[in-house]
């Protein structure tokens, strides 16, 4: 112990403050989700599940949820395939312009969503594609690819090459080696990259607003629309509460994957 008593106390208080700062809004939101009053006013007046029933009976929420899940799954799938292929090409082969391509891959994540959104919208209009779920998926894939790419390339840099050479040496052709040796080696990187990409897609709103058609709504879009109608606020709280519950699962999984079981194997 090199710190004095006062420093220790100070550090503890800081920790508590950070926790409060991070979680107080979530607690308040949760309380309102169970509050019978339609108006958000302190203190809460009781306890009810009414808003959950109302949310479940709202078909717009159901459609938005399905759209969000489809967009997240589609964008993640595209991102994993393209991101892995690109990472393999850039990590494994030296070719002219490799550094430039690597830079071009990372760049989209730094671009403001508004720019990505308007650029995609213009392109879709120019090409003549109808706006809808498909255009949302493509829009989300642009930044999800970067996530997948970054995860995979970081893993590839750490993976030794000799097991792949050993596989070829033992008679496996290139595809068999990829399937049986390289892919299992990247497994946890794909999983954590996929989870992160899905999470980003699920709460994305800016690019979504630009690329969604008039009839297509995702969960963030629905929430964004609903908060402007005060009577829907309790239902928004319910949705947010459910999302908090479901978000903890992938975060927990990703933490376990990166720190525990998978980490020590390579």
């Amino acid at each position: 112990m090199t710190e004095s008593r006062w420093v220790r106390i100070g550090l503890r208080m800081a920790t508590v403050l950070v926790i409060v700062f991070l979680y107080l809004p979530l607690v308040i939101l949760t309380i309102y989700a169970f509050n019978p009053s339609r108006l958000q006013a302190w203190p809460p007046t009781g306890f009810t599940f009414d808003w959950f029933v109302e949310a479940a009976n709202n078909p717009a929420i159901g459609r938005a949820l399905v759209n969000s899940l489809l967009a997240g799954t589609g964008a993640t799938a595209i991102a994993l395939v393209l991101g892995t292929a690109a990472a393999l090409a850039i990590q494994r082969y030296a070719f002219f312009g490799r550094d430039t391509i690597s830079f071009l891959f990372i760049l989209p994540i730094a671009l403001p969503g508004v720019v990505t959104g308007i650029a995609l919208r213009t392109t879709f209009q120019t090409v003549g594609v109808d706006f809808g779920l498909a255009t949302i998926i493509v829009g989300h894939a642009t930044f999800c690819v970067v996530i997948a790419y970054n995860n995979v390339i970081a893993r590839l840099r750490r993976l030794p090459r000799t097991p792949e050479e050993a596989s070829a040496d033992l008679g496996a052709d290139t595809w068999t080696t990829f399937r049986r040796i390289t892919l299992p080696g990247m497994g946890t990187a794909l999983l954590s990259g996929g989870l992160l990409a899905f999470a980003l897609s699920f709460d994305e709103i800016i690019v979504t607003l630009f690329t969604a058609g008039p009839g297509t709504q995702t969960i963030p879009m629905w929430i964004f629309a609903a908060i402007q109608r005060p009577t829907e606020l309790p239902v928004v709280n319910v949705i947010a509460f459910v999302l908090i519950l479901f978000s903890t699962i992938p975060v927990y999984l990703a933490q376990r994957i990166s720190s525990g079981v998978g980490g020590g194997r390579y």
Partner: protein
Amino acid sequence: MAVESNREIGQAGNASNRVPAVQLEGVTKRFADVTAVAGIDLEIADGEFFSMLGPSGSGKTTTLRMIAGFEEPTSGRILLHGRDITGVPPFDRDVNTVFQDYALFPHMSVADNVGYGLVVRKVARSERSRRVEEALRMVRLEDYGARRPSQLSGGQRQRVALARALVNRPRVLLLDEPLGALDLKLREEMQIELKAIQQQVGITFIYVTHDQEEALTMSDRLAVFNAGRIEQVGSPADVYEHPATTFVAGFVGTSNLLTGDVAVAVIGEPGVYTVRPEKIRIADVGTEPESDEASAVGRIRDVVYVGPDTRYIVALEVGGELVVTQQNLETSSMEALATQGRSVRLIWKRRHVLSLATSEK
């Protein structure tokens, strides 16, 4: 010089009987601006335990990787049992490799690691499990099939790597410093075991090492690599007792070089000469050498006690230094160390003086 011609006859006699397991013809390898292998020709006989010995960066591992197919030669040809395999990918070559870092598959059990080559070559399940069992028994790991590589010790991983390669019954097995990561005791055990396995299976072993003792104890023949070239090929006794160049004399054993004026003073003729440290005896300065012996007077500059032997570093009066190794038959460490600073006469048989060609670099 009589020895030289004898050796050539012996080699030619072997080679004419059978097609060599591996032939390298004018093989070079350049990486960007570095020449790793600068044109080598080599024939390795079927069933031979052949070592490629040299310091790091001498091209021995690159040569092995070209035989395996991981690197393509910049020029030259590689033949496997008479068939040109230059340009053939590793998975179509009838050779297997034991890697320096073992390169085991971390996500597979030991048995699945060993059986991998049989699975990808679509060997029937029943034969596969029989051969995996047999291979694990050969390396004395029959009870370890269900374990993961991470649960094994270094020596055990090394054996798994060996079993994984041998289970495919390749015609040539390539070993890239396979004992490099093991401690001395285990190394010595594995050297004996590897040699025994090689004799049992009768496969050609090509063994890369930088450890001259390992190469001398295990090999039928060895090639000494330096700066991308082969300096000498021969049996261990040949290479040790008749080093062809100054590099070989220095790398395989202690060099004990006599050059320039020192050579003229001690040997009587200009040139580069060497005398192995164990061929020299230490006597009083007044001792007269026999007619077939040569001698030089010097002062013991340093004494290194190494258990069974003592090494004396003697500074000669005419200049230069010679190392003398003597077994500690009756000498104690105290007595050996007490000789430091004493003037002595070093005596050796004239026939133990070797004339050397100078190496490049």
